């Protein structure tokens, strides 16, 4: 064996082991969902069954938690995406002397442990609602949306800042020059330009919200989401129904990933076609001149 092929083999082994570490646990858990054994395991595989999925579908707490997680996810998207966009635009416009401080403040939630965000949200709103004399806003769903939005908005802002940096200010001036008002420019030019960033922000915001545990477990108070119900179940004991839930989530994720890949390929093909057309037009132009 030559040195080069030994190197290749070592590299292949390393990558193989890495992905085994990454997928092995999920695979084992996934298979255990179909095993009749009442403790989640794959050895011995006692028999194939769909029963754990049925158990999952009949678990009222889980279904309730799922609904609540979906509602919270949608609310977080509705809050965090516009806030993140505003945060990114503000980053460009704030007086340069305050920029560093502003950035520190709005990025800090990304670097703060989730439990602390959850705790502080609960403390603040408990005190505030007590002072105001109305407990209406001291509500698990509301606090969870706020707590999660604190760092999810920062993710959205970072995505928007990256896109905004590629915005040509001349487009804004061109709109103004053609007679558009500032508001029209925002809706007609800036927002369409930001669309890809806003879409990825929305997807990221929803997924981050849906899978969040650390912040949620504090902020949700007495209410439940899918992850908090799940955590409770896992602490009570292991049942293959939990594996079944993992299988469902993995299946949805894989579908999402495939869909993303298909859309991406289609978009790449479209861009390639446009580039081809442009170079053809360029060649024709030169022939005329």
């Amino acid at each position: 064996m030559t040195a080069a092929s030994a190197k290749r083999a070592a590299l292949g082994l390393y990558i193989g082991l890495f992905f085994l570490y990454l997928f092995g646990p999920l695979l084992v858990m996934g298979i255990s969902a179909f095993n009749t054994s009442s403790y989640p395991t794959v050895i011995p595989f006692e028999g194939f069954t769909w029963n754990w999925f049925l158990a999952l579908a009949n678990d009222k707490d889980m279904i309730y938690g799922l609904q609540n997680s979906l509602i919270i996810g949608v609310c977080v998207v509705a809050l965090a995406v516009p806030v993140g966009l505003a945060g990114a635009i503000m980053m460009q416009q704030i007086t340069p002397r305050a920029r560093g401080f502003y950035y520190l403040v709005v990025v800090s939630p990304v670097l703060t442990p989730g439990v602390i965000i959850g705790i502080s949200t609960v403390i603040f709103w408990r005190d505030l609602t007590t002072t105001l004399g109305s407990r209406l806003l001291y509500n698990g769903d509301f606090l969870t949306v706020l707590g999660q939005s604190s760092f999810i908005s920062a993710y959205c802002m970072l995505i928007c800042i990256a896109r905004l940096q590629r915005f040509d200010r001349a487009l804004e001036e061109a709109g103004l020059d053609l007679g558009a008002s500032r508001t029209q420019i925002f809706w007609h030019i800036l927002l369409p330009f930001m669309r890809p960033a806003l879409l990825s922000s929305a997807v990221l915001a929803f997924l981050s919200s849906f899978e969040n545990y650390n912040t949620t477990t504090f902020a949700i108070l007495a209410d439940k989401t899918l992850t908090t119900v799940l955590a409770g179940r896992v602490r009570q004991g292991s049942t293959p129904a939990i594996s079944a839930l993992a299988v469902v989530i993995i299946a949805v994720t894989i579908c999402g990933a495939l869909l993303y890949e298909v859309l991406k390929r289609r978009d790449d093909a479209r861009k390639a076609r446009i580039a081809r057309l442009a170079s053809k037009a360029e060649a024709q132009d030169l022939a005329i001149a």
Partner: protein
Amino acid sequence: MRSSDGHIFVLLLPLLVIAGFALIALVDRRQGRVTGPGFFARNGVGIGLYLLLAVSFWALLVIVLPQLFMVEMAFRPKLPPAATGGPRDVYTLENFRYFLYGSTTSTAAWNVTHLTAFWKTIVASILVTAGNFLLCYPLAFYMAQMAKAARVRLLLLLLIAPYWVNEVLRAFAFRVILGTSGVLNKLLLGAGLIDAPVDFLGLDVGLYAGLSYAYLLLMIFPLYNAIESLDGRLIEAARDLGAPWWRIHKDIVIPFAKPGIASGCTLVFMLTSGALAAPLVLGGPRSLWFTPIVYDRFYQAFNWPQGSAYAFILLLTCVAFVLAVLRLGKLSLGEITR
């Protein structure tokens, strides 16, 4: 100062900071250092209001004030509701005293349980962070500099996929494998390597494996992004000059990827030390992680001021870690949060 006045101070503090910056901006404009249209002229009234309201709601009500309230509460005594605002409601260090000595008054003995848990959490988080770096660096380098574009896209997709399975389930997967009647024990027993099941969870193997697994992605992405922007010709040039492979990494790749490394390490440390799901699911009965202790202060002991103090200690630890990383790498905050 009475703690009731404390709230007013905490509410006013951010407003004073904003007012200060507004004043500076005003002076700059007056003296002609800043020109061009003002904020509302530039955005229009409607959009301008949206920007201001959205950002101030977020920065004040969602980020800053909750944190300040939590810190403020950490310095207050636990009192029954009736005594709130009364003569005993003054600022105190008793919650921190409890963390150190296990008592709000006596300083005779150390609070061994909590201090050990805290110390173990910090050390374990640093080890997990370092381990993750060693595990991810080669793959990040391979993807960023060696692999073809199509392969990289596939690998990225494969890397992201497991992370939309939430933390609790990821931890659970390790329990399925490492539990006393888990897959690994069954395999080892079947192979005759051991006679009785090994308690991997009790030995904290499960905890460390689960923690390292949980945040692998957050290490590999910053590393990949940083190394990807390195011009491959630099590496070739170094190789041409006869540099051995480890020197290429030590002298060229790692210094270049410093912001990415710092970013990955900061995120992994923060998430690991603040992890709640993995310790709850995978922690053995003897392994006390710090975050569940904080959780218990709130929902078992119902001592919110003490819980706040503990959370504040965790926050300070993370801030210290971020500052240490920035100082060590001579980096700015903007460089590690991209």
